[in-house]
């Protein structure tokens, strides 16, 4: 890097999948950031300095993530990262960030371990997230399902090879059983599977459940929902935040009607319209096509920007401290406060119901953490 | 022939493939340090016999004894280890390796150093490698392959490949050498050279040679004793002179040379 030009610029890094099968999410996120950086620079930058965004592809691969991060830090002088959007990569990234003492904030890495250590629950100093964590979402859905939807027995079909699906399954089960429900049957499948009828047949034969929980990405959700209906499973489904993808309707509109799921944000909120229009105009692409990622990337940028401003100088350590102390910051999707002990955000969660091809917000719901 | 002189005893051996009986109750005794010919029409079971001696095929019935010890049922490499080497009718060289590498590989039987010597290239390894190198080079001179040293075995002319295969077999220091049609693809002059070469091998190395071939000039010239197979059974046995005159052999195999 060139020393003299570095000091008068603020260099942010984005790490995410630009190639490979998850590229669509990386694209939505990186485009959002490109747009925001451009806007910020038009308004005079941050602290009067020009913001530069560097984009690094990681193919959703943890090893590549660390390579990219080293390059960003060493060659390009990045002072804070936004992304990546999967937990496994976020955890891998943290190892590098810890070494260089540079903060990063994941858009959708929901796993507990992204911000906290497994052994003792201690916080990972440089790791933040803008979304809710799996335990938070699991709590919400477990309690909501039992208390509001009146579901007493649940079946789960989950992806054993996916940390996200696995995490939610565990946290949902914990929360659900704590309040009095019971998970009667759990079946697993592997990443990449497209046929779930063997598992679903077994679930159907077991029969003893009021709702089928499907903690999965929308493709699997769509296929599972279709196949479950085709096999004659008539019980309702329960979903998770990853359901918030419009493409789901294309795959399985009929099958998922009436399903409830929680999400940390409302993609139909009115205040998103302006952003959506700008985005659409600039990139000829509906940010909603990639689910919630673009909006979370927006939040992340605001948290980082706010932190740099509060820190007063582009010093990674100070930015980190400021991020940790984010309080009641109005972001795109919610007001956000970062909990210093966990680096999880405190933010509203909403429950959605699928009606027609709409995600209808039913209510905002904060779980009772005392239960 | 006294028992002690018998180095290889083939005892009532039978081999069947499905419906085909390729070798049918054959017994042959092979004398130490002799050159023993095995001839017979195509498909008589000669190669099959070799395959059984070297453990590539199991025998359907009967036994094979090497120096009084039963060897059928053992694996090919164990038999090679005991000292029976062979060449193949359909030449089987290490085609992508050079002539020298083919020969060096065959020295493995006489190299005793272990795995760790190999990894660490100990002095034991070095000295043994050096002597192997020397042995190979001598062999190349002896067999006349020096000029081909760095050529890939697969690219050699047919006759040269045959010589290389013999050389490779010899490098395992066998006490019995089985040659399956070594003169195939050689003209009469080259066959003559081969005959002399085989005789020399026997003299210099104290080994027993069993040879299959359809070149009667070679067989009659070098063999001490000949066994004739026909349709899997032993048709005749005797010295070259006897065999040449044997009417049944002439009918079944030799024909009358114009």
């Amino acid at each position, binding site marked *: 890097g060139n020393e003299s030009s570095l000091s008068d610029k603020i260099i942010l890094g984005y790490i995410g999948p630009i190639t490979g099968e998850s590229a669509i999410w990386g694209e939505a996120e990186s485009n959002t950031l490109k747009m925001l950086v451009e806007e910020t620079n038009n308004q005079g930058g941050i602290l009067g300095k020009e913001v530069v965004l560097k984009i690094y592809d990681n193919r959703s691969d943890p090893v590549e993530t660390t390579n990219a991060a080293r390059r960003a830090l060493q060659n390009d002088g990045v002072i804070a990262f936004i992304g990546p959007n999967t937990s496994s990569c976020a955890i891998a990234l943290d190892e590098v960030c810890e070494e260089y003492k540079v903060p990063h904030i994941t858009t959708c890495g929901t796993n507990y371990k992204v911000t906290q250590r497994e052994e003792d629950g201690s916080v990972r100093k440089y790791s933040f997230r803008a979304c809710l964590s799996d335990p938070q979402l699991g709590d919400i859905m477990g309690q909501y399902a039992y208390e509001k939807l009146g579901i007493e027995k649940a079946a789960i079909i989950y992806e054993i090879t996916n940390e996200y699906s696995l995490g939610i399954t565990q946290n949902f089960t914990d929360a659900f059983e704590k309040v009095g429900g019971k998970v009667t049957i759990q079946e697993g499948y592997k990443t990449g599977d497209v046929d779930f009828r063997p598992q679903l047949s077994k679930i159907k034969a077991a029969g003893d459940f009021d709702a089928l929980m499907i903690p999965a990405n929308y493709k699997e959700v769509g296929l599972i929902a279709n196949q479950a209906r085709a096999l004659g499973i008539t019980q309702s489904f329960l979903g998770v935040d990853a359901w918030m993808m419009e493409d789901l309707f294309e795959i399985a509109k009929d099958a998922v009607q009436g399903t409830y799921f929680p999400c940390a944000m409302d993609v139909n909120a009115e205040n998103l319209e302006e952003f959506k229009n700008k985005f659409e105009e600039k990139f000829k692409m509906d940010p909603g096509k990639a689910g919630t990622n673009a909006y979370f990337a927006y939040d992340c940028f605001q948290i980082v920007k706010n932190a740099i401003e509060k820190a007063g100088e582009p010093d990674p350590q100070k930015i980190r401290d400021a991020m940790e102390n984010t309080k009641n910051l109005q972001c795109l999707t919610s007001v956000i406060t970062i909990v210093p002990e966990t680096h999880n955000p405190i933010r509203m969660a909403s429950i959605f119901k699928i009606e027609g091809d709409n995600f209808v917000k039913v209510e905002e719901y904060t779980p009772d953490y005392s239960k | 022939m006294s028992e002690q002189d018998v180095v290889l005893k083939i005892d009532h051996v039978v081999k069947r493939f499905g419906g085909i009986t390729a070798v049918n109750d054959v017994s042959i005794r092979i004398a130490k340090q002799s050159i023993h010919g095995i001839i017979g029409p*195509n*498909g008589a079971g000669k190669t099959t016999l070799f395959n059984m001696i070297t453990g590539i095929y199991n025998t359907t019935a009967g036994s094979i004894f090497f120096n009084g010890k039963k060897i059928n049922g053992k694996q090919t490499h164990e038999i090679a280890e005991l000292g029976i080497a062979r060449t193949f009718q359909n030449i089987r060289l290490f085609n992508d390796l050079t002539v020298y590498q083919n020969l060096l590989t065959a020295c493995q039987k006489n190299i005793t150093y272990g795995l760790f010597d190999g990894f660490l290239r100990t002095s034991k390894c070095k000295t043994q490698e050096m002597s192997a190198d020397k042995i190979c080079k001598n062999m190349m001179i002896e067999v006349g392959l020096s000029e081909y040293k760095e050529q890939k075995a697969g690219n050699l002319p047919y006759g040269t490949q045959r010589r290389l295969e013999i050389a490779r077999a010899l490098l395992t220091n066998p006490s019995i050498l089985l040659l399956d049609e070594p003169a*195939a693809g050689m*003209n*009469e*002059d080259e066959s003559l050279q081969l005959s002399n070469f085989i005789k020399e091998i026997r003299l210099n190395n104290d080994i027993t040679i069993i040879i299959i071939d359809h070149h009667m000039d070679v067989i009659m010239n070098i063999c001490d004793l000949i066994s004739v197979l026909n349709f899997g059974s032993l048709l005749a046995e005797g010295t070259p002179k006897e065999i040449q005159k044997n009417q049944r052999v002439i009918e079944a*195999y030799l024909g009358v040379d114009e």
Partner: protein
Amino acid sequence: MLKVENLSFSYGKIRAITNVSFELKDGEIMAIIGANGAGKSSLMKCIAGLLKPQAGNIWFGKIKLEPPPFKAVKKGVVLVPEGRWIFPNLSVEDNLLLGGYIIKDQRPGLKRAYNMFPWMEERKTQRAGTLSGGEQQMLAIARGLMSNPEFLLLDEPSLGLAPLIVNDIIELIKMINAQGISILLVEQNARKALGIAHQACVLEGGKIVKRGSGKELSADEEIIAAYLGKKKIESEE
């Protein structure tokens, strides 16, 4: 009708054939003899279209012979290669049928082959790879005839055959030739080859060093010394 003009071929740096020219008339047998590595097989492969010569031309009548080999076969030029190249995974009969790939009605061909080698009919379902060496050689020859060639290239057809059968094969070659098929014959059994050849030449180090009629060459002192060794032994005895 086969005309080879100034043919040269090398495998990378190794020169196999240098400037070879000869001509073969319709209905003749030509024998090529030479030591190991003289370039005989390479020459045959060039004619059959398996190798592409670096220089020179091969004419079959008015047609130029070039790779790939199937073109030569369609024109009636068929090679029975050294080392047999049978299809080990196919049955004996399938080998024959594949030999007659370009022929519509294969029945006469099969019948002829089974007449020629009666054992083949009994073994027609055996996997060719498990045949004995000599049996494979016979199969290769029979297979070569399946496509009714006008011109046959035989590369060491007697390889691995019992003496009795060698005589049969030589008779067979004569018979085939009598039906008007021209033959280019590479043989180590030089005496027998020269015995039936109308023309012959000697290849040494990739060059033709001698040519003449079969009779002339088998009487040639040098040739007797170099290639017909057996006579020498007998005379010494």
